[in-house]
Structures are given as structure tokens and as C-alpha cells.
């Protein structure tokens, strides 16, 4: 079987790509991804997508444009809910429709709906449906699903060790290639909150993580924290939880980090015009107000974000936090 399945390397790619890759390889489908983000891809996305959409969505459009001539099918699942509690941003729910109805000349889209709230086996059933597109039977899908699940567990374990998703994916691909390089410990530790697809895409985040690393700051993200610890935060003192999975995780991470004071500063990376973030950011800001010994800064990115502006703000912030820490070393 020589069908090529395209998976755009944006949005959920950073969280589920290892799972999808393992699954599709097992049922005998070749997976192609779009190349990592470039100026060209972003420009294509900006041209095709609606001006009012947020950068990550525009970027997704760009990645689809990059892929459309390289594959026979596009894999854009309609991910509604995966943990039975929180859902994804409405733009994720309408993603396959947005792509289908606004881009021309794209290969057929596999848009299976995945909603864990519809019974225990609903996730597996969704993958059975995906398998049926490629003529894979029950047994093959079951085996592939199991293998994919094991891979995802390994991947998540690597993330929790502090690895960046791209490095972790590389490590899973060739496990014996080289020793695992864990991030070095340094005396400054920042939490970077925000959505994985913005933080880890080094083009769109203007290499935020790389810049921090160069300045001698080690970074903690919501993915590096054990999900159990996050779940223990309950609703962070609010009457309801946030509806959206990533926002919920980020708020819980903020709540946990502020309360336990395990970091020297908290950064929130948000995209211009991001709907859930407008609410999340205010909650984190109000939370930060109660913990005055941990500085907090919001960084906003969009398709015009400049390298220099970002670098200046980061340098100033890091210097300030460092000086503060040196001035009162006994605090920690």
C-alpha cells in the first residue's frame, strides 16, 4: 500500500504526532509532514486565512498549503474532547470545515470526530473509522492503537523530563542514536505558559525558548509538569473550570507554580486575537497580583512580531529578575 497521508506540523502536531505516526506506520500508511515553519509558509497562511483569525490558525493554513501537493490524503481530525472533561477551542472544532471550504485543490480530508465524552470506547472507535479509510481491519487497528499508545506514553515521559517536543520526537524516532541530552540546570528558572503550538514553534515564537536558553535561563512549561499535579489544582478557586484543554492546563500550571514558588518568573506567551487567551491571561494576571514575589510578563506574538523587539523585552525582563534574585539570595 503506497498511500501518502499528510499531517500538517502545526497545532496538535506537537502533542499527538508520535501517536499518529506510530499508528499509521503500523497500519501501513506512509506519513508525510510539512516542513518546519518558514517565512514562506507563514505568508501563504496569512494570504489564505481570514484576517481576523489568530496566528496559529493562519500558520495551519500555511502548512496545509505546503502539504497539499505532497500527499493523497490530509489528516485533520475534528478533535472535540480527549479527556472527557475539557474541549478544544471552537477553531479546532471547525478546523476541517474551515480548510475544506476556503482552500481550493486540496486532497480529500480525513476528518474523523474524536469525542471522548461519548462513551468509553469512543476514541478507539474513531481510530477504527480512520483505519477503515485505508482498509485496515479490527485486529490491525487494535494492535496499531496499542503501539501508538505506548509510544505516546514514552513521548509524554520524555516531555516530563524537560525535553522539548521536537527533541523528544527525534529521540523516539532513533532511540539509540545518541545519549539523551537533558536540559542543563541553571540558577534561573522561568515558567513559560501558553499553547504548545505557539511555544515550540521556534519561528512563530521568535525562538523564545532558544533565547532564554542562551541567556542562561532554564524553562519549565505546562507539558513538563505531571498531569496529576495539575489535576490536583481542581478549579483554581473558580466556580467553573476553563472549557478549553490547553487553557485549563495553563491556568492550573500557573496556579500551581505561583503557590509553590518553584520558579523565578512566569511568562505567558499569547497570540494576537486568541479568544481563550483573553480570559486566561486575565485570570493569570489576577493570580499573579496575589504573589508579588514572582514577576509575571505577557508576551504577545503575531505574524509581524520582530526579532529585535522581542529580544529587548526578554533581556530586560531576565536582567531584572536576575538582579532581584541576587539582591535577596536568601529568599529561596
Amino acid at each position: 500500500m503506497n498511500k501518502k497521508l499528510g499531517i500538517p506540523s502545526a497545532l496538535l502536531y506537537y502533542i499527538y504526532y508520535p501517536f499518529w505516526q506510530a499508528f499509521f506506520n503500523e497500519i501501513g500508511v506512509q506519513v508525510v509532514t510539512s516542513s518546519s515553519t518558514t517565512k514562506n509558509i507563514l505568508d501563504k497562511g496569512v494570504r489564505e486565512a481570514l484576517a481576523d483569525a489568530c496566528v496559529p490558525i493562519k500558520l495551519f493554513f500555511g502548512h496545509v498549503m505546503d502539504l497539499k501537493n505532497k500527499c493523497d490524503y490530509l489528516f485533520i481530525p475534528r478533535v472535540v474532547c480527549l479527556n472527557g472533561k475539557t474541549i478544544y477551542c471552537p477553531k479546532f472544532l471547525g478546523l476541517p470545515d474551515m480548510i475544506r471550504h476556503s482552500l481550493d485543490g486540496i486532497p480529500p480530508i480525513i476528518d474523523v470526530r474524536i469525542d471522548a465524552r461519548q462513551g468509553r470506547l469512543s476514541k478507539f472507535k474513531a481510530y477504527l473509522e480512520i483505519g477503515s479509510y485505508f482498509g485496515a481491519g479490527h485486529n490491525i487497528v487494535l494492535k496499531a492503537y496499542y503501539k501508538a499508545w505506548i509510544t505516546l506514553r514514552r513521548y509524554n515521559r520524555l516531555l516530563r523530563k524537560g525535553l522539548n517536543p521536537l527533541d523528544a520526537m527525534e529521540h523516539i524516532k532513533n532511540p539509540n542514536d545518541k545519549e539523551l541530552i537533558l536540559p542543563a540546570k541553571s540558577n534561573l528558572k522561568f515558567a513559560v505558559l501558553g499553547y504548545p503550538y505557539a511555544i515550540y514553534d521556534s519561528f512563530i515564537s521568535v525562538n523564545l525558548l532558544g533565547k532564554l536558553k542562551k541567556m542562561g535561563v532554564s524553562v519549565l512549561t505546562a507539558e513538563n509538569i505531571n498531569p496529576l499535579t495539575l489535576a490536583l489544582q481542581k478549579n483554581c478557586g473558580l466556580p467553573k473550570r476553563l472549557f478549553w484543554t490547553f487553557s485549563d492546563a495553563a491556568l492550573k500550571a500557573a496556579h500551581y507554580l505561583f503557590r509553590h514558588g518553584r520558579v523565578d518568573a512566569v511568562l505567558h506567551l499569547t497570540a494576537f486575537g486568541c479568544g481563550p487567551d483573553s480570559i486566561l491571561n486575565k485570570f493569570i494576571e489576577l493570580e499573579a497580583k496575589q504573589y508579588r514575589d514572582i514577576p509575571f510578563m505577557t508576551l504577545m506574538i503575531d505574524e509581524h512580531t520582530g526579532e529585535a523587539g522581542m529580544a529587548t523585552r526578554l533581556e530586560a525582563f531576565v536582567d531584572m529578575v536576575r538582579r532581584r534574585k541576587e539582591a535577596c539570595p536568601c529568599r529561596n
Partner: protein
Amino acid sequence: MPKLTFPRMGESWRTFKMLLEDLGNEVVVPPRPSKRTLDLGVRYSPEFACFPLKILMGTYLETVEMGADTIVTSGGVGPCRAGEYAMLHHKILKDLGHDIKMIVFEPPRLQPLNFIKNVRALNKNRTSIRGIIAHIKRAWRKLQALDNAEKLSHVVRPREITRGTTSKMYRRVLGWIDQAYTTEQIIEAETTALKALREIPQDPDREILKVGIVGEIYVLLEPASNLEMEETLGNLGVEVERSMFLTGWTRDNTWTETTEMMSVKEAAAPYLPELVGGHGRDSIGNTILCAKRGFDGMIQIAPFTCIPEIVARTILPRVSRDYDIPVLTFFLDEQTGKAGMSTRLEAFTDLMRRKKRLQKRHFTLTG
């Protein structure tokens, strides 16, 4: 005694005021959103929060100044941001030092206990359950009367001979309905109101365009937030049919999904089979239904950064092409100016009128 207030949405405040007073509460009527409301709202809300959140923030701050200490509002279960509004408003108000109580109504079918608890908290007169039901029924009738009067004003306005008569009459009529208390009075007021609106001198030969309005509910229902778009369109000779009224929405969201909703859902299914929250799917479904009914155009209005409407807006150009119906979208925020909007509306109306005339000539030539 606690002083209650609630979000303002068009003319519906008249009903809510009556209902809450019937239950024995003291009510602070939220003022019509003004420049000052917006300034207050924008100052204390997150920058990228949607427009309704900012207006409501400003309204709450104004009503707090007027002495309100309890806010009655609605909740929700997502995925639209509106479900988190109450929580965020409460936190911001607390942060500003206002000790406000919030009574948040969640969908009663999902959380019946919350509903009963809230109704008990509001029932200051200790009215019996039967009494409460009677009050709600009467309030519902009033809401329907208000909606009917508004619907009729949209039909009459483009046909009026002297510009401005309908708006003047509509404002007077609202007062009549407002003063009615018993069900009989409400029905009587409604009949007189509709009659008075119908009797406005009209020009039957005028060429009238028919336009449907879809979009996010708050900016649809609150004329102050959409810069009186319906009135502007009416004055341009356009009959407006709004896809959403509070009576229809409440029915759909609290109890059952009505047959009308089902057909909207079915119409939207080929384009957007998923509920994306807010009214994204309704916007698409209603556009298709209106196109099938032979409307001349559609206008979508949504707050800036509204997520469901962005999804809908991305798909609408395809719908517009498939059904050959022009669609114009407005994303509204505190920067939107009335002059700019009027210009766009005028241009849109001219294009629609031209299209209609061309089609008519085509028919007479071929048929």
C-alpha cells in the same frame, strides 16, 4: 435589601425588571450602553476580550455606582467564551474592590439544582411554585410582545413615507407594552401596538430589498452595540429579518431544540456539522435558509475576535458562492465608527439593488 441588576440586551430589560420585581426584588435598571459605558468597560476588561464582555463590564460598573450589589446573569458550558463571562466579571469586580454577589443561571437541564437554588435566592416574596410559573409565563408573553413589535418595525420602516415615523412610533409603543401588567393587558397593548405600527403611512410601490442578519446574539440584540444597524438599513429601504430574537434563543437553549433550530442545523450540516459554540453554525444555516427563501443579501455581525463567528466567516464565502447570495461581514469593536459602517452599508445596498434589477431585466427578456 439587596439591589439586583442584570445584563442589558435590547429592550428585554423591561421584561426582566417586571419578573424580578414580581418576585419581590429591588431592581436597578441597567442604563443604555453609552460612550462612558464603553470607556469603563474597555479600561477594566482584557484587551482581546470580545465586545459584549467589555460592554457588560462597563454596564456592571455603572450599575454598581447606582447602588446595585447583586448581578443576575447567565452561564454556559462552552465552547464559546460567554460561558466564562460571569466568572471573569466577578473576579475583575472583586479586584476593583466591589463586593458583588453573582447569581449565575446555568442551563437548567444540565444543572437542575443550580437552577432551583437560584430561583429560591431570587424569590424574596416566597411566592409559591405555581405563582412563580405564572409570573414567568406572563414575563414570557411580554417578551414575545416586545419581539413582535420589533419584528413589525423592521417591516414597516423601509416602506414609511416620512422618514423617522416608525422609529418614533416604535419608541412610543414600547412604553405601552412596558406599562401592561396582567396577561390581558399585555395582549391588548400588543394588539394596539401592532395596529399603530401598521397604520403608519406607507408607500406600497417602493422597491424593497430583503436582507437577513445573522451573527452573534449580543451584538444582534443590543442596538447600541451594532450602532443601530437595523435602523440605518431600514432608512436605506431595506427590510431586515433578524435570525435571532431572545424568545427564540431562550427556547432553544433552556429546554428543547425546536423544529426551527433543527432545520437550521440540517441546513448547515454540509458546511459545518459541528457545534462550534456561540452562533457560528446558526449563522451558516440561516444564511442558507434565507438564500433559499430568495433574500437579496445577508449581513453577518460579530464582535472582534469572536471565535465561532470567525469559523463561520471562513466558510461563508463558499456558501455565498454556492447559493449566489451576497454576504457582508462586520466585526465590531469599540473602534467601529458609525460613518464608516453607513458607507459600507450604502455600498452594499447599491450592489444588491443593481443585482436585483439586472436579474429582473434578464427575466423579462428571456421569459
